[in-house]
């Protein structure tokens, strides 16, 4: 094959470049699709509630993933600092997943339950008031901006198309009851999304249910991260057997 044939025809050059680059990706990704054990069998992981989902959207909008990863690797140092390594099963309902690669800030995969709601609100608004050497920006607006949730049903329906089991009819609801139990299944009903969202806001720090803020959603999302799997139920070698 002559250089000329490739380099003087953009289409040839483009197709061959894509072909060569895709090999690297395919070799890494395709095996994981073919092996059943990739996603571990584990109890407790559920889709996000409407409020948590909107929190995740705000997390993405503000670009939190640019500095915070959500992926604890199976290394001793990370085990000691952050806790149990992340499982594939824990992000099975994430679209998109927010594993991230950069750690300008700490990993957040298990931040849920580590700090109180009020701590999070102060920290997100003014990080340096709590951690003097922090490089995180002050997200001043989240506390005051009203949460837009009028389109929550559309968000949930979009995720249904991606395979997340929010329920639209009785059959899907029954399936969710079998999968997650009644309490969780009730929070995954699309037609009750607004009602569920407001009910969850009521448990938040300021107790202001009338006008939920973006902060309410973001904090609800942070508080759920990494808390769904009860690792005490599994012996130490259990998750190694999925590799």
């Amino acid at each position, binding site marked *: 094959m*002559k*250089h*000329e044939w490739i*380099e*003087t025809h953009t289409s040839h050059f483009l197709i061959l470049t894509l072909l060569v680059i895709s090999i690297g990706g395919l070799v890494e990704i*395709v*095996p994981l699709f*073919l*092996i*059943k*054990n990739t996603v571990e069998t584990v109890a407790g992981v559920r889709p996000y509630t409407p409020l948590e989902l909107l929190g995740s959207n705000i997390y993405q909008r503000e670009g939190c993933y640019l500095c915070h990863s959500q992926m604890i*690797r*199976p*290394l*001793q140092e990370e*085990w*000691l*600092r952050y*806790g149990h*390594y992340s499982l594939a099963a824990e992000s099975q309902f994430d679209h998109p997943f927010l594993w991230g690669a950069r750690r300008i800030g700490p990993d957040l995969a298990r931040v849920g*339950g*580590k*700090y*109180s*709601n*009020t*701590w999070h609100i*102060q920290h997100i608004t003014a990080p340096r*008031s*709590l*951690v*003097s050497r922090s490089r995180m920006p002050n997200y001043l607006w989240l506390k005051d901006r009203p949460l837009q949730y009028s389109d929550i049903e559309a968000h949930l329906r979009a995720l249904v198309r991606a395979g997340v089991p929010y329920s639209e009819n009785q059959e899907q609801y029954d399936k969710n009851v079998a999968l997650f139990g009644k309490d969780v299944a009730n929070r995954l009903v699309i037609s009750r999304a607004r009602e569920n969202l407001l009910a969850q806001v009521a*448990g*938040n*720090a*300021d*107790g202001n249910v009338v006008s939920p803020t973006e902060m309410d959603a973001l904090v609800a999302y942070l508080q759920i991260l990494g808390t769904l799997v009860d690792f005490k139920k599994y*012996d*130490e*070698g*259990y*998750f*190694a*057997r*999925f*590799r």
Partner: protein
Amino acid sequence: MLDANHPMVVQTTSHIWDGDIQEFNNLPPRGWWRAFYATVVFSVFYWIVHPAWPFGGDYYTKGILNKIEYQSQGVTVYAHWNTRALLLHTLQQQDGAAGRKEYLEKITAASPREIVADVELMAFSRSLAKRLFGDNCVSCHGNNVANASFGGAWFAGGIGLEGFQQTIENGIGAGSRGGWVMPAWKNRLSVPEIKALAVYASQLSSARTEPTDKK
């Protein structure tokens, strides 16, 4: 083709830009070329030794010669190479792991007061708690009372060693409106870790708030 036998012959890439601009088709330096072939040879070796090729279902080549040994529930397990087994192996069999396990068991069995009384246990407990304090407590309590940003009052002390242990275990304000103020660390930390932290925090507290050591 250009090769080692025809070093002086330089071909061009055969197309001409802007009327007269041509490009030499030189080989890369020989060392680079050798390194490239070395990576190809290495990849074959790597496929054989490490888990590599999937064949559908649960079967994939597991690699040879590099089994990892770890203990799970008192049973020795041999696994094909993978990072999760490697982590267990490291935690269980690295230098000092046996001693660490022994001390953790001693701390689990001892009361906080007994830990304080035992010089060796105290030394171990301090070094364990120092790291845990940095990872988990500093962000609210600060590393001294002057920059205790969120939970300063906690350091006032006066609740005794057992009080510290109970507070760390169960947190503060569970079930109140707006959620807890301090998390229940029994969900995140092990029993010896909590005890070590209780002793560490109580000493830190008395050192900060009362210059003269008081029992």
